[in-house]
């Protein structure tokens, strides 16, 4: 489905620069207003008019969303509100009834994406060694063996983690397995990285370590990331924006910004601003989650 290929890095839209109305006005038969609706500056992923039902149950009804470029956006909301469904729709894993989703104006097929599953044990290929798991997506892309090795070696070096990459996944710890999953997703240099509850199968200590690792990756690469989280602390700590969703049929309750400088540390959680933002998210969440 996701026809991964080595496309040129898409040109970045400069912040706040609005295209010239005269020059751009009629291009592609779209008016400026329409273009801005589709490609607001600094937006990477645009979701427009999304309709999604499971049987008679409406999850999304004419749902619109902009996901910012080069930022970490966390998705937080009541259990079963459709967080995974949203991420799976955007990444092409499940079909939807209506609407359109574009990445920088490109379709999914023209976009390289990475996806990290919650259940790392069931996402890795246990019949392959860890290193071969990381090689696999490059193999699918048809990258020659030598180039593949160069890229995987470089990735392993940049991660600098004490993992025996020649072992099989089941010989590794949970955190190590999830690290391999993240590396497998990153090795293709995705334009967007999706993570669906990446830490929730890990113990607490490991989840702290892993969220720090994800932050480091983000700081090094600046890849647009979308993280589903059920842990509000993780969600706020990691993200530039927290997307708060309502109960079904799901709408955006609030798009909360958190702009504390990086790297954020263990002390960040006791920072006044962090506490304020987290409280705000919690209030909205409680209001939305309350049975009505």
């Amino acid at each position, binding site marked *: *489905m*996701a*026809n*991964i290929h080595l496309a040129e890095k898409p040109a970045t839209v400069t912040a706040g620069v609005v295209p010239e109305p005269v020059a751009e006005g009629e291009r592609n038969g779209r008016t400026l207003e329409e273009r801005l609706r589709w490609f607001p500056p600094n937006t990477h992923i645009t979701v427009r008019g999304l309709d999604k039902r499971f049987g008679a149950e409406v999850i999304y009804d004419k749902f619109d969303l902009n996901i910012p470029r080069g930022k970490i956006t966390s998705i937080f909301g009541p259990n079963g509100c459709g967080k995974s469904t949203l991420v799976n729709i955007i*990444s*092409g*894993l499940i079909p939807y009834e209506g609407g359109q989703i574009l990445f920088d104006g490109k379709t999914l097929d023209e976009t390289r*994406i*990475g*996806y990290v*599953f919650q*259940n790392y044990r*069931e*996402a*890795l*290929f*246990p*019949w392959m060694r860890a290193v071969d798991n990381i090689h*696999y*997506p490059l193999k*699918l*892309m048809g990258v020659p063996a030598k180039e593949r090795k160069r890229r995987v070696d470089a990735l392993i070096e940049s991660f600098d983690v004490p993992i025996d990459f020649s072992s*099989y*996944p*089941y010989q590794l710890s949970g955190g190590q397995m999830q690290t391999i999953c993240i590396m*497998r997703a990153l090795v*293709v240099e995705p334009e967007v990285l999706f993570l669906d509850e990446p830490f929730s199968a890990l113990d607490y200590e490991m989840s702290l370590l892993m969220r720090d690792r994800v932050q480091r990756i983000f700081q090094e690469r600046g890849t647009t990331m979308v993280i589903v989280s059920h842990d509000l602390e993780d969600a706020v700590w990691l993200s530039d924006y927290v997307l708060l969703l309502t109960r079904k049929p799901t709408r955006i309750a609030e798009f909360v910004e958190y702009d504390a400088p990086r790297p954020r540390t263990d002390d960040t959680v006791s920072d006044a601003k962090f506490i304020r933002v987290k409280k705000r998210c919690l209030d909205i969440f409680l209001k939305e989650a309350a049975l009505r």
Partner: protein
Amino acid sequence: MKALNALSGYLRPVWGVLALLAVWWVIWAAEVANPLLLPSPQATMLSLWNGMVSGDLWGDFLSTVKRTMAGFALAAAVAIPLGIFLGSTERLYRSLEFVIDFFRSTPASALFPLFLILFGVGEAAKILVAAFGASLVILFNVAYGVMNARQTRLLAAQIMGANKLQKLRDVMFWESLPQTFVGLRNGISLTLVIIIVAEMFIGSSDGLGHRLVQAQMLFRMPEMYAAIFAAGALGYGLNWASLQVEKRVVHWGGK
């Protein structure tokens, strides 16, 4: 102490065998059963030993092994690719499921007359009827293994850009291997059963089945018991060997 414990661990199954032999010997010595029907354990073991060393039991044993392996190889060669194909097109499998289940449930021995008419009394009929029975068991397991492939792994492959064929080759095939091996182990046991019965009833001049019937007709009880034990050892050995292969190939199984 540790070595002693390990040793007693290895020896544990031997106690059962010794107990069986002891009970057998006591029954024989007390003449509870007619000694013509139940020979002494030592006479039986001697017959087993002599038969294997002198070569005639060994020859029959080898013939049965050869037929079993031929039937099993044929069954696996047909059923594994077919099972992967059917499993990956679930709708096709569902429409064939009744037919597969029906013939899987049909005793292979009920097909002997048909295979005799079709293929004559030679080797072909025996091997083919065994292969037919085993292939359905293998096919069924492979197809189910493929259909029950872990969804997450397929999705992961899809995200990474795998097409249908690549998903089949790189994920479904491997995912189905544990279940495939269940099928292969059942298949090889079934092949042995059918081959031995075929050797009894489809004109045969060698093989353990043939030997058993001969010994029965000539009332050579130690020889018959020896052949039974040889068949048992063969069945056990085949099962053990497939487990070893399975452990090596499906090293991730159950982990």
